[in-house]
């Protein structure tokens, strides 16, 4: 009951200051996304709020330690915060805290050092820690897992990149080869033209090339003037004839071979097996039955 009463009171308050709160609500939602729980504030300070400065200072005087209490008792350090920190920017906020802590420890360390007091624990000082060993083990394993994950992702990325690169290199190579070929052909054509222009002179000089293209040789088939060869055909009609016994089969033949089989003994293909013997689909039913009847009689 107490709770419901309270809530109803709250709602009443709401309705009283509806406009004021509406704005607050709209502001609050966006903030809540950025920070868990959300740090919601009123836009304007409420006027009813109590602030009794004198009372506070009195209390402060009451509870505070005597002036002569040394710094060693407090161990507190004040650090200047250089600039305002945006609350919703998690990174800068945490960084501000970190720098504050670091500066504080440095100052405190200097003070302690000047007093000749121990600061960090020595290596051989073992004592109970805040977090148990098993917990630290878990922390460690998690760190390792994360590291491994990162490494794996890195490797995958590298592999992907290298694949891309190799592909590019391959393409480059092919291009180069094609270019090379073209150039070769080009040069040969050029050479031929030159020779034609010079009227097949210098043939008897005995150079190898000249010999190879000597026209009058009986054993050399003339590459140039063959009957029934199309002028653009570089193979000189050989492709059409299929006369050249190449090591490779045509692609179509290969596919067909893989489909229907090639080579091997024919007999084993034609023999019956248990399955084929039992398979009576190919027979006429009527003829089978009639045959049996005949045998009975």
């Amino acid at each position: 009951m107490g709770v419901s009463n309270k809530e109803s009171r709250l709602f009443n308050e709401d309705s009283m200051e509806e406009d004021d709160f509406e704005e607050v609500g709209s502001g609050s939602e966006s903030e809540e996304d950025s920070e868990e729980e959300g740090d919601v504030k009123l836009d304007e300070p409420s006027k009813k709020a109590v602030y009794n400065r004198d009372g506070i200072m009195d209390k402060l005087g009451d509870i505070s330690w005597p002036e002569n209490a040394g710094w060693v008792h407090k161990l507190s350090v004040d650090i200047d915060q250089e600039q305002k920190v945006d609350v919703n920017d998690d990174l800068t906020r945490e960084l501000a805290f970190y720098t504050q802590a670091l500066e504080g420890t440095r100052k405190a360390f200097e003070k302690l050092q000047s007093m000749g007091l121990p600061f960090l624990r020595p290596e051989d000082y073992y004592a109970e820690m805040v977090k148990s060993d098993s917990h630290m083990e878990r922390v460690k394993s998690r760190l390792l897992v994360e590291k491994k994950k990162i490494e794996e992702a890195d490797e995958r990325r590298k592999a992907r990149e290298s694949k891309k690169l190799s592909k590019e290199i391959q393409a480059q190579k092919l291009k180069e080869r094609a270019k090379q070929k073209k150039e070769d052909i080009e040069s040969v054509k050029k050479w031929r033209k030159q020779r034609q222009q010079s009227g097949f002179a210098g043939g008897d000089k005995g150079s190898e090339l000249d010999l190879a293209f000597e026209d009058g040789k009986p054993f050399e088939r003339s590459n140039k003037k063959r009957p029934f060869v199309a002028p653009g055909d570089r193979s000189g009609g050989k492709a059409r004839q299929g006369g050249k016994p190449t090591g490779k089969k045509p692609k179509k033949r290969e596919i067909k071979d893989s489909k229907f089989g090639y080579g091997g003994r024919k007999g084993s293909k034609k023999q019956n097996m248990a399955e084929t013997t039992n398979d009576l689909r190919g027979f006429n039913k009527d003829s089978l039955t009639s045959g049996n009847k005949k045998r009975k009689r």
Partner: protein
Amino acid sequence: MGKKRKQSEVAVLEKKEEEVAPERPKRTLSGWKEKKDDDEVKPSESTAVFRNKEKVLVTCSRRISYRYRHLMLNVVDLMPHCKKDNKVDSKSSNGATLNELVELKNCSSCMFFECRKGKDLYLWMSKCPNGPSVKFLVNAVHTMEELKLTGNHLKGSRPILTFSSDFDKDAHWKLLKEMITQIFGIPKEHRKSKPYHDHVFVFSIVDDHIWFRNYQISVPHNESDKIARGGLDKMTLVEVGPRFCLNPIKIFGGSFGGPTLYENPFYISPNQIRALEKKKKAGTFVKKVKAKTRRKMHELENPLEADEFSEMWKE
């Protein structure tokens, strides 16, 4: 039991001694446990006489959620000078019972974690016999168990408390700073404390909230001998946790009650926030209904004229 009697005897003895010869060597005082509160220490005594005998009672209300309970346990772990007590019934826990409890436990201050509705955590800090008390709303809680917080430090080593300069800006911040130093600072030469300093607390005011962080001070191992020179630069901090953010709501003059000294003018209770959200969600349907009725009214008010051509094609 024997011990306690001895203490009281000693106290009596000391008082007598003081009456007779106030400038006696301090040796006698510093050696014994004294029952007087810290603020009663006489100014005539020299600095070495001051002893911090803070004892903090840490309790929580019933029906605290596990996360907040863990936070409380973390706080207990961090403060060897505290006493943990059973859960206190939140409904019946007016100030008187809590004050009584603190007195029973011989403590001089109290931290009371109050959980409401299983989701809102309020933290009371109070100086107990007659000091002020503060009520905070606790936000953004991360406990020490979280695996992202990888640091670790000695249990019971005295922390270095760092405060941002904003704490000196206003009276209530000053008061809060003093209370925090007294409650979170571990008394020097406390019997459960350890003589080294390997962690640091951060209290920083951002956006009118007090943010708390706890870092481990770590120096590379081989450097720790020569930390005086090079090691200081290589000092790094690793977060240990817990994390939380305190939003001060009110400061009272007494402990768990008394006149209000300060009220946060910007504070909205989480109940109000939730109510607003609910209202907003309810608003969509209400809006739709309203629009419909408005349309109807509009149609009734401005009826359409009968179409003169409507009968034209019927023949």
